[in-house]
């Protein structure tokens, strides 16, 4: 039995296979409509997350399976003081696979230690969000045709942004990737990520505060939201939230082939008028999230 707690739980070959399966689902959805017939997915969301939960649930429905679960810890026995381990042991009596989100970092790992069914980490605090990373990798593959050799810029909150840390970690296993880190001083990528991921893997990277200049050499620009919930201090949040906004004017000077990704939800860091620009991939990216989760559910359920 396999779990997905961290993106590194999957080998590069397994990620390639998931991407290939997701692409096949996109091309032949009818072939997959009954793959999980009779199977049940439990979505245990101890903190709210509409889009990730709906993506998982839609993925299971489109595989012909069923969904149980809760979307708020207030509706679970957690509010009565039940531990994560006990909740998981009970739910694994009813479901064939569990996707869980929890505000505490490491909760999915605790779940995986006691679960009788596969656990998928659907986000644990500011720590890991491996299915978002799979979504990003599928999107980049579909938009650019490949991942090796790309120059990928990350813009915004690189300090607290778990999607950024996970994607950089995943990219460290591809060839000739160049990373451009674009952020204000206060939200720079943490030193330990630079040391243990970028430098440890001999990846080429630069840091800059100048979005306009950095964009000129990018194949992919990964925008992030400055997340209010990651700040202890509201004054810091208000001061930094508008630091890097992608506007139509800015995009006019960007390369014609540069793809713009965003894990969503956005606040105001990408101007709405940009949505019709063919380089804006973020809604196609959200759709990719459903397909890669379908591929992942099949893999962990060992459905052929």
């Amino acid at each position: 039995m396999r779990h997905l707690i961290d993106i590194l739980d999957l080998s590069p070959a397994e990620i390639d296979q998931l991407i290939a399966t997701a692409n096949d689902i996109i091309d032949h959805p009818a072939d997959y409509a009954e793959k999980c017939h009779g199977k049940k997915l439990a979505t245990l969301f101890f903190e709210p997350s509409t889009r990730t939960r709906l993506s998982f649930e839609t993925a299971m429905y489109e595989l012909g399976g069923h969904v149980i679960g809760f979307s708020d810890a207030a509706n679970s026995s957690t509010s009565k003081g039940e531990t994560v381990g006990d909740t998981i042991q009970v739910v694994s009596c009813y479901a064939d696979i569990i996707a869980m989100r929890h505000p505490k970092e490491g909760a999915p790992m605790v779940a995986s230690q006691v679960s009788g069914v596969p656990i998928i980490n659907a986000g644990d605090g500011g720590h890991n969000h491996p299915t978002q990373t799979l979504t990003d990798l599928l999107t980049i593959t579909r938009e650019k045709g490949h991942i090796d050799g790309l120059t990928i810029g990350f813009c915004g909150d690189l300090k607290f942004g778990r999607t950024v840390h996970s994607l950089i970690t995943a990219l460290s296993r591809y060839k000739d990737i160049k990373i451009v880190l674009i952020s204000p001083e206060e939200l720079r990528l943490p030193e330990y990520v630079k040391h243990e991921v970028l430098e440890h893997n001999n990846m080429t990277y630069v840091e800059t505060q100048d979005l306009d200049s950095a964009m000129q050499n990018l194949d992919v620009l990964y925008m992030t939201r400055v997340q209010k919930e990651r700040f202890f201090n509201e004054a810091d949040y208000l001061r930094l939230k508008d630091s890097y906004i992608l506007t139509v004017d800015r995009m006019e000077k960007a390369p014609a082939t540069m793809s713009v990704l965003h894990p969503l939800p956005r606040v105001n860091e990408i101007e709405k008028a940009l949505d019709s620009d063919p380089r804006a991939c973020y809604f196609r990216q959200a759709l990719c999230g459903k397909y890669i989760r379908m591929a992942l559910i099949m893999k962990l359920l060992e459905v052929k």
Partner: protein
Amino acid sequence: MVIDSIRDGIVIDHIKTGLGLEIYRLLKLGKLDCQVAIIQHATSQKGSKKDVIKIDSPIEIDLDVLGYLDPGCTVNVIRDSKVAEKYHPAIPETLTGVISCKNPRCITSAESDLPHVFRLTDKDAQVYRCIYCETMAKKIKI
């Protein structure tokens, strides 16, 4: 200063000076009912400074704690006033129940029954990270 030699017990020798008290704390030696002596800033045979701990009882020593704090120390098991065995603690791959995760967002902060487990992630720099949230353990300052 004279501290009697022991007949049956443990001598933890060649402790990096300043770490003796931390080893005493993490090995919970204060809970023993035998005599325990901590000698700080002792002079070694090579003339350098070291700490030494003498325990007047043949207890089991958690070598993981010593390997984590000071892999350069030695553990001498004394029987009939002679060194019967000598150990050099290795740097442990995992530490369970030795140090605590200080990350308020870690699941261990919410569920007190969970064991605090750290894994060695960088042997050269001796970096340990919480297995749940990957927060780095703070280095012991001498």
